[in-house]
């Protein structure tokens, strides 16, 4: 471990230091990657939403964004590939007072973990899902993802992606999410605001954060580095709050529509469960299961 230089000067501290594991720095993300910005927005939102960090569990899967849980000073769980939402479901159902956040990437949440995503939305498990979408599997070196735009290149789509991508907000809304927003990591204040709102919401909330991958996605597609991608966002993002999520497909280097699309009320899983349980206890609800007979 490095020794801290002794100095009388006041050390500058990172404004988010109380929410970050400074002893884990430097992080592994590449220069011009957007994940760090998404983390900054999230930590700022946590403060803005005035949530006691001791009550928050953050769950990540595998991949570049999967490392987020390990850099944030909360109860951090770095789980198996695709399973953070299922893991988080266990936490939330067994311990309803915990504030649960799933912070993971598009490959983790939409491909291998896609089933858990739609089912947690259907159940309306009270959790915030932050999906950092960089259009590619970056940790493994740039393979095609279920979010890669049609015709975009990746190492496993060397002739251009042949499959249409998921429209994440549309999938989230149709599966039952109560809050759905999309921003790029350029829109750091708007992203922070959405995360703050989503943290205060009860139910399954999804915030998609489109992030540059300056190392793999932009290189193989000749898009410059992360900064060039930020410039692209600047010139090509259109903010349309309340836009029908059907219209949010992302093409290769086409316009990206951002905004808050869904903000609605549905009873959460825990709310329904508690209601149901109180009926069981007051004998207003009977079991149809008849297992075992007493001798």
């Amino acid at each position, binding site marked *: 471990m490095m020794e801290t230089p002794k100095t009388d000067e006041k050390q500058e501290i990172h404004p988010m230091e109380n929410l970050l*594991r400074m002893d*884990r720095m430097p992080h592994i993300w590449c220069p011009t990657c957007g994940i760090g910005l998404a983390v900054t927005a999230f930590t700022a939102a946590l403060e803005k939403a005035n949530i006691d960090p001791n*009550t928050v569990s953050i769950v990540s899967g595998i991949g570049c964004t999967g490392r987020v849980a390990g850099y944030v000073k909360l109860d951090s769980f770095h789980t198996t590939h695709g399973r953070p939402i299922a893991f988080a479901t266990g936490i939330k159902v067994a*311990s309803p007072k915990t504030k649960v956040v799933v912070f993971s990437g598009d490959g983790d949440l939409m491909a291998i973990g896609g089933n858990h995503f739609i089912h947690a939305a259907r159940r309306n498990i009270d959790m915030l899902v932050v999906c950092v979408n960089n259009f590619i599997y970056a940790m493994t070196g740039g393979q095609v993802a279920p979010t890669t735009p049609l015709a975009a290149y990746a190492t496993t789509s060397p002739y251009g992606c042949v499959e249409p991508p998921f429209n994440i907000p549309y999938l989230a809304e149709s599966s039952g999410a109560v809050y759905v927003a999309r921003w790029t990591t350029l829109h750091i204040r708007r992203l922070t605001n959405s995360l703050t709102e989503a943290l205060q919401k009860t139910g399954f909330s999804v915030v998609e954060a489109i992030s540059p991958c300056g190392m793999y996605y932009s290189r193989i597609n000749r898009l410059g580095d992360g900064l060039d991608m930020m410039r692209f966002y600047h010139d090509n993002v259109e903010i349309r709050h309340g836009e029908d999520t059907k219209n949010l497909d992302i093409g290769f280097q086409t316009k990206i529509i951002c905004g808050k699309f869904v903000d609605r009320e549905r009873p959460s899983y825990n709310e329904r469960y508690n209601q149901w349980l109180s009926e069981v206890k007051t004998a207003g609800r009977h079991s149809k299961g008849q297992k075992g007979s007493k001798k």
Partner: protein
Amino acid sequence: MKADPRGVLTGVYYIDGDVAAGYGALAAGCKFVAGYPITPSTEAFEAICHRGPQVGAVFIQMEDELGSISAIIGATWSGVKTMTITSGPGYSLMQECIGFGAMLETPFVLLNIQRGGPSTGVPTKTGQADMMQSRWGSHGDYELIAIAPESPQEMFDYTIKAFNLAEKYRCPIMIMSDECVGHMTEKVVIPEADKIEVEPRRLYTGPAEDYLPFKPEPDLVPKMAKAGDGLKLYITGQTHDERGYPVKDAEYKSKYGRRLVDKIRLNKDKIIELKEEGTDNADVIVVSYGISSRVAIKGVELAREKGIKVGTLRLVTVWPFPDEKMSELAKKAKAFVVPEINYGQVVYDVARCAHGRANVVLVPHGGAGVHNPNDIADAIEMAAKEDKKIEGLIEFKTRLEKSVFEGGFKLKE
């Protein structure tokens, strides 16, 4: 600690093994069960869905087995005792997260009602062919504990024991039952709560800043923690140091990875449970577990009627394997006879420990049924008559195999 009376459905029941295991979980203080329906384990999950809400346990039927096991690991880290229930294909799907649970040193119980495999196999009938999977199924080095009950009463009793072992050794516990025991209906006595001993979670109680989630106590098992206590846990499936922080150098991999196997291997005398009978002067010892040990009782009886000196060793816990005991018996007996409902799994560990000192006879069974006790008796007789030391495994030709492969295919003998 005594069981919480809320979960203990004291009484005398006539129920099947699946249901008994479900009631055992509730008695042990299980508060969260996630599962996915799969034959022949479904009745255990149904029993919990029916009784759980009445006794303060939450259940959720997940979208798949991957979700079920992930959810119980999450729930365990939020502070409760948990279980999942599965069989065959579901067990295969859970393997990755069994290793994840072992890596995170997460206490939980997995009830596997084994059925005929591979793949879909014979879903409604029995098998014991997941035994090696329960030991080596997930990638990487780890050790687990596997228990094989042989009756509905044992399904109740050993489910409680499984929960206790999980807390004691902070690791996943496999209850390796099978369709036959799961669907066997017998008398089950559920005692009063104050007669049931349960192991509480060994939670860390010191100052938050000093907590190291993977710092071992003298018994090599670290104190457990839960989310929400301000400990700022960092829990990862990556190889990690005592803080939980990822490490990747060979030195660290050895330093921190080794304990996952050592905490079971070095504590195995306290973990292993065997039932041994008549082995002292035995020429032949029948080594069995689960339903096969019950079938073997008749086979042993038949052999004894012929005057053969037979002893039995029943592996109540199959993993960790009782190496020393088996080696010691190999010095005394002429042969081991191992009936299991597979084409040879646990028998290889018996052979390893016999080390050429005693012959080892496998009585195989392809599944979808149990052994004919006459086969076990004949195998014992054959082993008793054999005076030569025979290298390698001896495979006994059962009546079923003969009828299928030699005497022409017949449904019934």
